[in-house]
């Protein structure tokens, strides 16, 4: 996709986003708006993995870890500070810092891709089991009881500087949607910057990136931390949308769900994961109202169908189809050849020496 066409799409996305931001509370019911806030939190979470996996090539199976840490850190900090403004900052910083710490061991330890997935997932499950066991008065951070299985009630956001002026659910929606728009365009800016282009280069060929002088470990660590920070921000929105944070944010179901959003929406794009998250969130929501088919079964079928039939995800596939229809055949051929070349390249590597 060339830069000019990409820019016109970005403008369109921006306009749709802003219209949605302003218009949704005018036409939708309050219940729907509250639900939307949660969906937006999920979309921001999907965006964070779309950045880390789709552009950095880091398959993090436990993006929910940073999401959950962000949510817990927000609630604990808000209860202790008696206000939420700094709690938001704390949540993002703690999530990013934890991602950086975990990333340090993985990237500087040169952990390979598969094990990276296993480690991140395991860390998320460790948090799940850890937080479930924190019921009882002895488990508290400052004034905040961790509450074990039941979790903690999340104080709603307040206007910065005035801790007694709470935001209504509608106002929280504005904040969430604005955060998503800012997050999205922030990510667009990032992947177009020198830093983002190097991240893509590392995804394409780590050795080459190193040989032209980039510290691959540091670059990956920074990208991973940025992804963790965005996931942390998503956690803050989630805590506000649901009004409660429980250990379930760390569970296997959520960890897998994020991956599915990104696969369905499309790796290598930023809007794909956002749309994937929205789409599946509402699909699961509407399935939840009936009892004839099991939710997870449907989700599983969707995943299998996408992996087998639409492996690139919705957005990249639509772009390809569009190009084909318009006669830009080059783009389509390119992908076919790329896979073949990849295969022959691995064969070449073996008789090196």
């Amino acid at each position: 996709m060339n830069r000019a066409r990409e820019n016109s799409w970005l403008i369109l996305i921006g306009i749709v986003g802003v219209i949605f931001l302003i218009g949704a509370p005018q036409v939708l019911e309050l219940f729907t708006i509250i639900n939307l806030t949660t969906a937006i939190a999920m979309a921001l979470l999907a965006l964070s993995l779309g950045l880390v996996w789709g552009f950095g090539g880091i398959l993090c199976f436990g993006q929910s870890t940073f999401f959950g840490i962000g949510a817990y850190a927000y609630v604990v900090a808000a209860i202790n500070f008696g206000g939420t403004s700094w709690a938001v900052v704390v949540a993002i910083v703690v999530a990013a810092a934890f991602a950086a710490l975990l990333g340090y061991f993985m990237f500087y330890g040169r952990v390979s891709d598969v094990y990276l997935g296993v480690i991140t997932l395991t860390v998320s499950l460790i948090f799940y089991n850890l937080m479930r066991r924190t019921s009882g008065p002895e488990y508290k951070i400052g004034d905040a009881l961790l509450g074990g299985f039941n979790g903690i009630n999340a104080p709603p956001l307040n206007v910065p500087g005035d801790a007694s002026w709470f935001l209504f659910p509608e106002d929280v929606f504005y904040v969430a949607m604005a955060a998503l728009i800012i997050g999205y365009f922030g990510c667009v800016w990032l992947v177009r910057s020198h830093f983002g282009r190097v991240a893509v280069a590392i995804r394409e060929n780590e050795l080459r990136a190193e040989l032209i002088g980039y510290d691959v470990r540091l670059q990956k660590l920074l990208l991973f931390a940025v992804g963790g920070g965005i996931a942390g921000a998503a956690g803050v929105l989630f805590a506000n949308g649901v009004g409660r944070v429980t250990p379930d944010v760390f569970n296997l179901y959520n960890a897998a769900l994020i991956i599915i959003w990104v696969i369905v929406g499309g790796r290598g794009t930023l809007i794909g994961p956002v749309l994937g998250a929205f789409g599946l969130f509402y699909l699961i929501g509407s399935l939840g109202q009936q009892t004839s088919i099991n939710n997870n079964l449907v989700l599983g079928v969707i995943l299998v169908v996408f992996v087998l039939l639409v492996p690139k995800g919705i957005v990249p596939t639509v772009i390809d189809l569009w190009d084909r229809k318009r006669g830009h055949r080059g783009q389509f051929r390119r992908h076919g050849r790329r896979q073949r070349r990849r295969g022959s390249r691995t064969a070449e590597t073996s008789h090196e020496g």
Partner: protein
Amino acid sequence: MKGEIVVETRGLSMHFGGVVAVDQVDFNLRENELRCLIGPNGAGKSTFFKCLTGQLKPTFGDVVIRDLNVNRAHSHEIAGLGVGIKTQVPNVFEGLSVQENIWLAARRFHPAARARSLVEETLERVRLTDIRRDMVNELSHGQRQWVELGMVISAEPWLVLLDEPAAGMTHDEVLLTAELIREINKTASLIVVEHDMQFIRMIADKVTVFHRGAILIEDTMDVVAADPTVREVYLGHRKK
């Protein structure tokens, strides 16, 4: 004799388990020199090369680049000294365009504006201006080699290490590559690992022959080519 020594190895050895791939190699490269490393398969050239570029950490001995011991340095740190490295199998960013590949290398050491002009300059030098927007994975093997050479020279290195730059190229492509390498040599010292004797004749100044992990002989191409031991090593051991 030419300028000061820029690359030096002292007793460099690389063992893989019980196999000694490089055995106590003492090697010097002087400023603005163009040195070819040759030798039969398994002679240890590529292993020696990987020790120089930080891809392998030597078992014993030292690698010194401009008075700096780089034994334990990572590849990106060696590249950071101003060393351009091309590997044996073309290592390029497959899914990115030709100009993006070269820009990434140029931008590492230069501010944005300078990097842009370096990309233009480099594309001209490696003759890829016409296909600058093409994806690298669509190109022929020879063109991919040039993309990699372009990445090496766009960073304006003072020392260039090339592992089989002419491998898999057509005759015309080899000629252009030889020309390019002589041009690089005007501003940088070079070490070229190569198999192709014809190609070496085109560029060689001084040649180092590797055999069984050690240096067999080090001299001009004519002397080396006339040496009976070298002939024997290359053509196989003849019964006497």
